[in-house]
């Protein structure tokens, strides 16, 4: 069964839409509507001290928002936009049976704020200082739960908290659940919030750490190709193979063994130097050009131009569990204008980058087998 991407969204501080994800892509550029740019401070503000970009969660209002954590708010924004983009929401109501739609969330730091604030409150004021309304957010699945409740999505509901590869892992699991027939569609959201506890944890327990982090979410709707066709939706990209291995090179080799068409755009795991073992191009300091880094694993075609390389973390900061979903949203949008190429998404640096593994996933143009 073919699984396709049928809806896309991205939202965050300095990230207004999927177009912003493409704005820095070599050869894929569309006009930016916002974008934090490569030179923002950790807060997302410009280095010259101009105002921090607008916080998109201000768009949310109502008493239901009071006890929702930041990750959940960001995910609700991206989730609604992606479902709407897919044509699965009309007047805010789901247009397909709720039990056929699942949710897969990827986040590593989503509920770290709730847990840290609670333990500090208990130390100072005993358990009486806590609010029972925050209880669900002590469990790391709280965001997936609110996405399901908000849109009536009663299919399988997963939360992947799987480190650097988590976003690509989430996309894989959504695809597997669709292929297995358990669900027909899945809302996949990758989200990471920024707040003091998250900065502290990402900084390894340094209260003064100011790591540059994405404060946002990306979402893709995956569906069986049949389901999209039946309801007259628009497939944007087809979901290709996925692998999780010890090293990026091994993960790329595994997916390329299954899907070998030319890779036009490569999303590397991040700015950390990825050893060029001969199977993937080195990220280098900037985008690859026809004269730039090439590698046999990604670009086996003699004489063909090199894959464009777009490190999303260069523009948006460390994206952690959101990265793979950002890459898939951006890649699916890019494929609309590149109908003969493939997108290679990679996350996690594996052994040599000090992470437990690396994942690779390929997207291909919609409508091609």
């Amino acid at each position: 069964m073919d699984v396709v991407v049928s809806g896309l969204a991205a939202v965050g501080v300095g990230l207004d839409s999927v177009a912003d994800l493409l704005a820095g892509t070599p050869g894929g550029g569309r006009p930016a509507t916002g974008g934090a740019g490569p030179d923002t401070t950790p807060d997302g503000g410009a280095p010259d001290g101009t105002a921090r970009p607008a916080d998109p969660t201000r768009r949310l209002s109502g008493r239901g928002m009071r006890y929702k954590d930041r990750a959940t708010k960001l995910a609700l924004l991206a989730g609604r936009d992606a479902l709407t983009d897919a044509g699965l929401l009309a007047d805010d109501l789901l247009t397909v049976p709720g039990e056929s739609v699942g949710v897969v969330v990827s986040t590593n730091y989503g509920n770290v704020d709730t847990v840290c604030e609670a333990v500090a409150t208990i130390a100072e004021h005993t358990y009486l200082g806590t609010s029972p309304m925050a209880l669900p957010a002590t469990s790391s699945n709280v965001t997936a739960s609110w996405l399901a409740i908000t849109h009536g999505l009663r299919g399988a509901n997963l939360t992947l908290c799987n480190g650097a590869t988590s976003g690509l892992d989430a996309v894989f699991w959504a695809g597997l659940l669709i292929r297995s027939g358990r669900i027909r569609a899945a809302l996949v959201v990758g989200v990471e919030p920024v707040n003091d506890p998250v900065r502290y944890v990402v900084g390894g327990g340094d209260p003064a750490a100011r790591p540059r982090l994405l404060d946002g979410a990306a979402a893709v709707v995956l569906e069986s190709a049949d389901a999209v066709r039946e309801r007259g939706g628009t497939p944007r990209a087809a979901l290709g193979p996925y692998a999780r291995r010890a090293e990026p090179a091994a993960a790329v080799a595994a997916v390329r063994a299954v899907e070998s068409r030319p890779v036009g755009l490569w999303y590397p795991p991040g700015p950390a130097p990825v050893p060029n073992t001969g199977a993937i191009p080195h990220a280098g300091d900037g985008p690859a050009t026809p004269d730039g880094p090439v590698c046999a694993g990604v670009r086996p075609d003699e004489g063909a131009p090199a894959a464009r390389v777009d490190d999303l973390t260069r523009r948006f900061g460390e994206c952690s569990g959101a990265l793979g979903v950002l890459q898939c949203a951006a890649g699916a949008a890019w494929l609309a204008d590149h109908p003969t190429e493939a997108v290679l998404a990679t996350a996690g640096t594996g052994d040599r980058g000090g992470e437990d593994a690396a994942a690779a996933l390929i997207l291909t143009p919609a409508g091609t087998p």
Partner: protein
Amino acid sequence: MTRPGADPGVLISGAGAVASTGAESGEIYRALCAGRSGLAPLRGFDPSRFRATHAYEIDDRPAPGVDEPMRATRWLLEAVAAALRDAGLDEDLGDIPVLVGTTLRELRSVELSWRDRTPVDPRHLHFGAALRRRFGAVDTHTVANACAASLYTLALGVELLAAGRADTVVVAGTDTITESTYGMLDRCYPEAPDRVRPFDRNRRGMLQGEGAAAVVLRREQAGYTGPVLARLRGVAVNCDAYHPSAPDAKSIALVIREAHRRAGVGPAEVDLVMLHGTGTPLNDEAEAEAIRDVFGSHAGTPLMTAIKSMLGHTAGASGLHSLLTAAHALRAGRVPPTLGITDPIDEIADFRLVRDTAVASGDALRVAQVDSFGFGGLNAVAVLEKVA
């Protein structure tokens, strides 16, 4: 590729478990049959901060009242190693997938770091790094699916086998208690629970437990002669999409029906139900109502029990703790009791709930249903079959 209906044949070929009452799957089962509870006064938290005084903790801290990070990871590694030994596999996992269900990951380590300003490694929030170091495993997935997590991941494991992505999958669950959850539960209940009393009229709520569990799944293939603990007939999962913490009986009934359908069994064929049974007013009523709805006139047929009365709510591990208890019970023909029921709620009046002491059922037990539900309206139900 689509399989409308039945799950494929899957064998449970090895098991490992750690809990407050034992450090091995068989030992925990025997303790349950003996009616031994892991309930004890709080060991790792400052008791002056809470109204509740007890939990079902593992007694492995460096000193009384002194907590340490990374305990959930330690138990996970112990449970996985034991499951591999039991299945006759060596510890070098490589590409064999390891799926870990958890509610709270290593958030207790984060709490200790934030409160006491000790270092924390963000790469240790999930379990991949530890599984890599110990077992060389690279295809590892930490699934934070609340208290339904380990049975939810069991369904994912079944799908990996069904899709032909693996012949062997390790599925595990692990959880320690966080102060944030313990404190907010304490804040929620009108009275502090003194113990977990599922289905008793005087139940006051849930108390957390600690532990881990792991199983090795293998796709059933002709010619396999290795160890087999039980056959996994099917696992169903869904989501209420109703409330962040309160359960929905209708949705639970749906997931039980789907588990039966995937397993190819009807209510009359179910001999044992491992109840989720948290001892909260809402869970116990919703679960009883759902079972009554699905089982109809057969509601009084299967034996039923709820092991949280002795292990506490082991959260992400609880589904597999129940599943392993079922597997042992099918083999040994002996069902452990539910403790603490002196005045059962009306909703279970005609259920054959095993109370006070274990019941020997001999060869009558062939098919077991295992319930596991969690925050966020997450529901997972598995069906196991005795292997002759």
